């Protein structure tokens, strides 16, 4: 333990330049032996940890200490992982760059002037920057895969319902999943295995679908049919990203995969549908933050209307306020059918299109992000430009299908991620393809 303690001091020191962590654990717990023994883990700060401050990167919960562990936290403790602390993120998981945090932005370990991606940017930076072996993030519209791509690590969004959301502070509860982040596919598979245990406290958790992901991990992809949608290489795609991803796809073909370019017409509506649904759900899920039972309480006031409005004014950051208001609008009388219901119908269209594709193909591949990691501050004044970063990731959340991002190359030392999706509960296929990519891509992750 003394070796870990001195390493812990080094990590705290190194964190000052990256700001991956909001809170460090007071005590490094000696958890029982298990699959994760000897591994240090960072937990995204939207995931509840009993006795350890959980802020969701918000002033609203600046001093909140949860009275319970999230299901996934009790599982990683049971398997012997050592929790080092709570990782920085965009406030209430709303963002793609970890710049919308009340505790300062996280810096990309590959280039400190660039974003690590978001919203699980602290988790990704902790792993990439050697401040943790593995991490847990959450993914509502790409929030695990985006920072995994930008930080050059592996991140997986499980099938909706595979991992319990009990203890995850809700943002878009029909879209999000907690998922593993690690330097390699094996560790990702191992962590997924540990956290995918059924939990009846989450009514959306599905029983009996998890498997032993490390045992099923192999690198045999010959004969696998892979679809490459042209829509994932849209106008905003950086040529370097396109080149790296297509080179990797060519390598998969040399290894026996059968690749075919396709069109998915409905994908062009996915970003709009995602944001309407996510913001609508956010407006409802964040209504609980009124300062009465927990969180920021700004003091006495005339009546409930004034108290709530005042607490929320002081507690929420601007991006959160923007999304709650847009969600309130989309759900309001006169606009509900045109926006919320329409978005849900488009969501069904997209889900059905994916089902048709997976009846013929084993997987879908494309870039995780359309660009290289951008500079801190670059997209802050143009929210729509920030939202557009999610264009390749949101469709997996709408359809509830599993998706992984695996590092496939670099451009000027900036990481590029390739995204692999498959049908519901087919994490095995995306892990295997990811495993193969690790072998053939021509570089290792330090």
């Amino acid at each position, binding site marked *: 333990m003394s070796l870990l303690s001195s390493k812990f001091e080094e990590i705290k020191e190194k964190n000052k330049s990256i700001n991956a962590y909001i809170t460090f654990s007071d005590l490094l717990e000696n958890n029982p032996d298990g699959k994760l023994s000897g591994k240090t883990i960072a937990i995204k700060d939207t995931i509840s940890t009993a006795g350890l401050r959980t802020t969701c990167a918000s002033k609203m919960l600046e001093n*909140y*200490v949860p*009275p*319970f562990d999230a299901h996934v936290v009790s599982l990683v403790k049971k398997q012997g992982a050592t929790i080092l602390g709570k990782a920085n993120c965009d406030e209430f998981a709303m963002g793609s760059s970890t710049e919308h945090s009340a505790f300062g932005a996280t810096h990309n370990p590959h280039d400190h002037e660039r974003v690590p991606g978001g919203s699980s940017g602290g988790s990704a930076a902790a792993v990439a920057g050697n401040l943790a072996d593995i991490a847990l993030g959450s993914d509502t519209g790409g929030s695990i895969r985006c920072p995994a791509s930008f930080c050059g690590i592996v991140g997986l969004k499980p099938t909706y319902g595979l991992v319990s959301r009990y203890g995850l502070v809700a943002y878009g509860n029909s879209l999000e999943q907690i998922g593993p982040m690690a330097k390699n596919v094996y560790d990702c598979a191992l962590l997924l295995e540990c956290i995918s245990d059924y939990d*009846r*406290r989450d*009514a*959306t958790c599905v029983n009996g679908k998890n498997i032993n992901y490390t045992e099923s991990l192999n690198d045999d992809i010959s004969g696998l049919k892979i679809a490459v949608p042209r829509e994932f290489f849209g106008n905003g795609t950086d040529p370097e990203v396109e080149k790296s991803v297509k080179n990797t796809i060519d390598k998969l073909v040399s290894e026996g995969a059968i690749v075919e370019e396709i069109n998915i017409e*409905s994908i*062009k*509506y996915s*970003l*709009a549908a995602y*944001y*309407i649904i996510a913001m609508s759900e956010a*407006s409802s899920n964040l*209504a609980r933050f*009124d*300062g*009465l*039972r*927990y*969180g920021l*309480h700004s003091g006495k*006031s*005339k*009546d*409930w*209307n*004034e*108290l*709530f*409005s*005042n607490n*929320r*004014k002081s507690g*929420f950051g*601007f991006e959160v*306020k*923007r999304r*709650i*208001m*847009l969600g*309130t*609008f*989309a759900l*309001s009388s006169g606009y509900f059918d*045109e*926006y919320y*219901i*329409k*978005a*849900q*119908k*488009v*969501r*069904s*269209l997209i889900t059905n299109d994916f089902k048709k594709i997976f009846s013929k193909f084993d997987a879908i591949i494309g870039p995780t992000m359309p660009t290289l990691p951008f500079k801190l501050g670059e997209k802050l004044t143009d*929210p*729509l430009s920030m939202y557009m970063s999610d264009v390749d990731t949101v469709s997996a959340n709408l359809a509830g299908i599993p998706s992984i991002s695996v590092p496939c190359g670099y451009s000027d030392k900036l990481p590029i991620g390739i995204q692999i999706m498959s049908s519901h509960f087919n994490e095995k296929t995306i892990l295997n393809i990811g495993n193969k990519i690790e072998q053939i891509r021509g570089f290792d992750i330090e």
Partner: protein
Amino acid sequence: MADKKIIDAKKYSELSKIELSTQEMEILNEQFPDILEYFDLLSQADTSENIDTQTLSNVFRDDIPADSIADKILDVVPEKKDRFVKGPRMM
């Protein structure tokens, strides 16, 4: 080109119960039309087919008592009296 939609930031700040500064309202009033214009892309999607969006069913657990964390929950309540959460006046 169609007129850009306007969202009245003041109206929705009241509905969301979030008080906004004048500056915040100005910024949002400026940004909302562009965002809404993007959302309006959905109007081009053909959803005329009868799409079933209600695919959920209820999940229940057995009514079995378990350990309570009520004391721990009360610990984080900012203002309380005995085991009650103190709230603001309603009127």
